[in-house]
C-alpha cells in the first residue's frame, strides 16, 4: 500500500516544528516529495541489480529480490505503441521510463522483439541463419521509436500497421506527489484528501465566471446540480470536453437583480474529469427562487482544480519506504531552512538504513 502524503507531511512538520527549525509550505513539500520519491524509485533498480549479484535466498519474506520487485511492480505497465506510421515505425508510450520488452503481436504467440543496434541489424540480415521472421522478430529502437523486422507491410498478404502490433512492457515514471489543501476560515491549510484531477472543477467561488444576464431572484441559498432538467445547470462542453457531476451552491443575498455583489456562486462538488476552458453551465429562468432569466457560467482556467491547491496525489512507493521518504524530505527541508543539523541527522539515518539493508 502506498504512503499517505498527509502522514509524511505531518511527520515532517512535527519534526521541524519540534526542533524550532521553521515551516515547510505545501508547495515546497510537494516539490521535495516528488524529488524524494523519484530518488527512492531510481534506487530500486540499482538495488535490484546489486541483489541479483549477491547470494540469494528463496525463503518467503526473506528474499531481497522478491521484495524489491514487489516495490516496483506497481510501476510496471503493458501498453500498445502510442502511434505508428504507414511504414511500420511505432512510437513508444509517452509515460515509458524504463524499457523492458516489446512483443510483436503479429508474430505467432506474440514473440518478444529482440532489440538490436543498427550495426547488429546489418550483420544479422547478412547471415542466412539469423534472418528475422515472425517467430524470431528483431527491432531497431531509436529516437523512442521501434522498427520491427519483418514489418507487417511485408507480410503475405500485407497488413496495415496498427499501434496494437507492438506491445510494450515497461516501467512508468512515478507521478508527482501533491499534498492538497483547501484554505480554512482562519487562513489555515486544511488537508484535502480528494484525489487531484486537473480537469475537474475547483471548489470555491465561481462568481467571476458568471454572467447573470440581468436576472433577478428571491434571496436564499439554492443548490443546483449539473443535469438536463429545468432546475439543473445544463452543461455544454467545448470541443473535446465531457465533464459530469458538478454541483453549485447559489447564494442570493437580497431579493432583486443579481450581480456579483448581490449573489455568489460556489462549486460544491468538483465532478468528474474532462471539464475545460470554454465549457458553459446555463441555469434556466425559473430554476430556483423566482429566477427571471438564465444565468450562464463560462469556465476559465482558474475554475479548474489545476489552478488551485486542492486535491492530493499520494506517494506511489509502498509504505515500507515511509521512513526513507520522511528522512529524504527532511534532508531537503534542512537545505531549504538552511539547517545543517537537520541535513546531517537525516543523511546519517538514511545511510544507516541503507547499510543495514545491504548487509
Amino acid at each position, binding site marked *: 500500500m502506498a504512503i499517505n502524503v498527509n502522514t509524511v507531511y505531518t511527520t515532517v512538520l512535527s519534526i521541524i516544528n519540534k526542533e524550532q527549525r521553521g515551516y515547510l509550505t505545501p508547495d515546497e513539500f510537494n516539490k521535495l516529495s516528488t524529488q524524494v520519491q523519484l530518488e527512492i524509485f531510481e534506487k530500486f533498480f540499482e538495488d535490484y541489480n546489486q541483489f*541479483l549479484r549477491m547470494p*540469494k535466498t528463496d525463503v518467503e519474506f526473506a528474499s531481497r529480490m522478491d521484495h524489491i520487485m514487489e516495490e516496483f511492480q506497481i510501476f510496471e505497465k503493458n501498453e500498445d505503441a502510442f502511434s505508428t506510421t504507414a511504414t511500420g515505425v511505432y512510437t513508444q508510450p509517452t509515460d515509458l521510463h524504463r524499457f523492458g520488452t516489446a*512483443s*510483436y*503481436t*503479429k*508474430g*505467432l*504467440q*506474440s*514473440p*518478444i522483439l*529482440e532489440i*538490436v543496434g543498427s550495426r547488429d541489424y546489418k550483420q*544479422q540480415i547478412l*547471415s542466412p*541463419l*539469423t534472418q528475422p521472421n515472425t*517467430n*524470431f522478430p*528483431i527491432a531497431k529502437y531509436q529516437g523512442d521509436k521501434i522498427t520491427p523486422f519483418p514489418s507487417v507491410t511485408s507480410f503475405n498478404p500485407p*497488413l496495415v500497421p496498427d499501434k496494437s502490433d507492438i506491445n510494450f512492457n515497461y516501467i512508468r515514471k512515478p507521478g508527482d506527489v501533491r499534498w492538497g489543501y483547501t484554505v480554512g476560515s482562519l487562513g489555515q491549510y486544511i488537508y484535502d484528501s480528494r484525489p487531484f484531477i486537473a480537469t475537474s472543477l475547483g471548489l470555491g467561488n465561481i462568481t467571476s465566471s458568471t454572467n447573470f444576464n440581468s436576472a433577478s431572484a428571491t434571496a436564499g441559498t439554492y443548490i443546483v446540480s449539473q443535469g438536463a432538467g429545468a432546475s439543473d445547470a445544463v452543461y455544454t462542453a467545448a470541443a473535446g470536453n465531457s465533464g459530469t457531476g458538478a454541483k453549485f451552491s447559489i447564494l442570493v443575498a437580497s431579493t432583486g437583480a443579481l450581480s456579483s455583489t448581490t449573489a455568489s456562486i460556489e462549486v460544491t462538488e468538483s465532478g468528474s474529469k474532462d471539464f475545460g476552458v470554454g465549457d458553459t453551465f446555463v441555469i434556466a429562468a425559473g430554476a430556483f427562487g423566482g429566477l427571471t432569466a438564465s444565468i450562464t457560467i463560462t469556465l476559465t482556467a482558474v475554475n479548474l482544480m489545476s489552478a488551485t491547491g486542492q486535491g492530493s496525489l499520494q506517494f506511489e512507493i509502498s509504505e515500507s519506504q515511509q521512513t526513507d521518504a520522511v528522512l529524504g524530505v527532511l534532508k531537503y527541508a534542512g537545505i531549504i531552512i538552511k539547517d545543517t543539523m537537520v541535513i546531517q541527522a537525516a543523511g546519517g539515518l538514511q545511510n544507516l538504513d541503507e547499510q543495514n539493508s545491504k548487509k
Partner: protein
Amino acid sequence: MGLIDQTSSEYYEGEILYSPSGNVTNTLVWPSNMTPLIWANAATASSYDNYDVYVDTIKQDPTLSPYYITQALTSTITNGVTTQSLVLTSNADPNSGATIPIASGSVLTVRLKNVSIWDNYKSYEYTTLKDIVNNFMLAYVGTDKVISRVKRSDVLFHAKRGLQEFSYDTLRSVNVQELTIPASLSLVIPQDYVNYVQLSWIDSNGVKHIIYPTTLTINPTFVPLQDDRGLPTQDVYGNSIQAEQAITNSNWRKANDSSISGNVTNRDVNNGSNAFDWSWWKSAYGQRYGLDPVTSQKNGWFTIDERRGVFAFSSGLAGRLITLEYISDGLAYDTDSKVPKMAEDALYSYMVYNIISYMPKTPEYIVQRFKKEKSAKLRNAKIRLSNIKIGEFTQIMRGKSKWIKH
C-alpha cells in the same frame, strides 16, 4: 496442460463440422490449432488448395448445383494468434437464377486434403525450432542459470547450426524422390540436396536394387574449346569458350555396361570391342583373371556432374524407375525446421556447449563438462534414432548362425 491441442476427430479426420446459418453466406472460423487452410483466390488447375468443402458429404465446387458455392478465405492475427475465416457464399443458379442457401439442417464439413492431413499426423513426433529456442531461453538463459546472458539471435544461430549438423548424421531426415531416368541419363540434383544416401532402381515387384557410384569415369568441370595448338579459345569478351558437352560424358553415356561389368554375351565377345575381349592381340588389357567384384554387378552406375548439377547415370539405366534417397540440412523450408523429440536434449546440449565455449572467461573445466555432456547426449540420440528393436534384431539374427533368445 497437455501438449496435444487437437481433438481426435481433428487429428484423424482433419475436418471440422459446422451447422449452416440458413443464409446465403456462411462464415466458418477455422481453429488455430489445425493445419492452416490454403486457398488460392485466383484458382487455376495447378494452384494448391489444401482443403475441400462438403455439404452433407457432397463435395462442393462453384459449378455444382444447387448451391454454386464460392468461397473467400481471410486471416486475422490477434495477439499472435492467427484466425482464419472461411466465407462460403451460395450463388444464383445460372439457369433458373435462384439462389439457394445451404439449409440449416445440413452439415457443412471442411476437410483438409491428404497431404496436409499427413503433415498433421506425425507432428507429435517433432518439436519445432521455435519451441527449441523458446525452451532454451527459458531453461538455460538468465540469472542463476548456465548462461547468464545471450542474445536470442545467437541461440537461434546455434540451434540452426545444430539442426544442420544433426541432419547430416543423427536425424533420420532422409528424403526420397521417385524418378524416372530420361533418355539424357541425367537427373537434376534436388533443390534441398546436401548429400545422397542411396540411389536404387525399382523393379516390377517394387524391390530396390542399389545403383553404385563409380570412379570408372569422371565429369570434367571445365570443357574449353581448343585451337590447333591446344590452347583454349576465347570469345570477343576474352572469356574462354566452353563446349556444351564433355566428350568423356558423351562416351560414358554411349558405353555398354556389360563391357565394364563383365556380363558379356557371345555377341559382345564376337564384337571384339570391349574391355574384356580376350583376343590374344589385345592382351594389353587382358591381364585380368576372373571378375572384379567392384564392377561385377548389373544395376548400373551413377556419378555426380558438378558442372551441370545433375546425377549422371550409365546407359543401361535409361527409362528405369529409380529412387533417390538424400539428406537435407533441415532448414530448407519452414516446415522442415523441426527436431525429433528423441534428439531434443542432445540439441540443447549442443547449443549450451557451443555458446559457452565461445564465451570469454568461461573456465575450461566448465567447457569440458558441457563438451562431455554434449557427446554423451548425441550418442544417446543416435542410439535412440537408430531404432534398434530387440524383436527385429532377433529376427535378423535368425538368418545367421547364432540365434538370440528373447
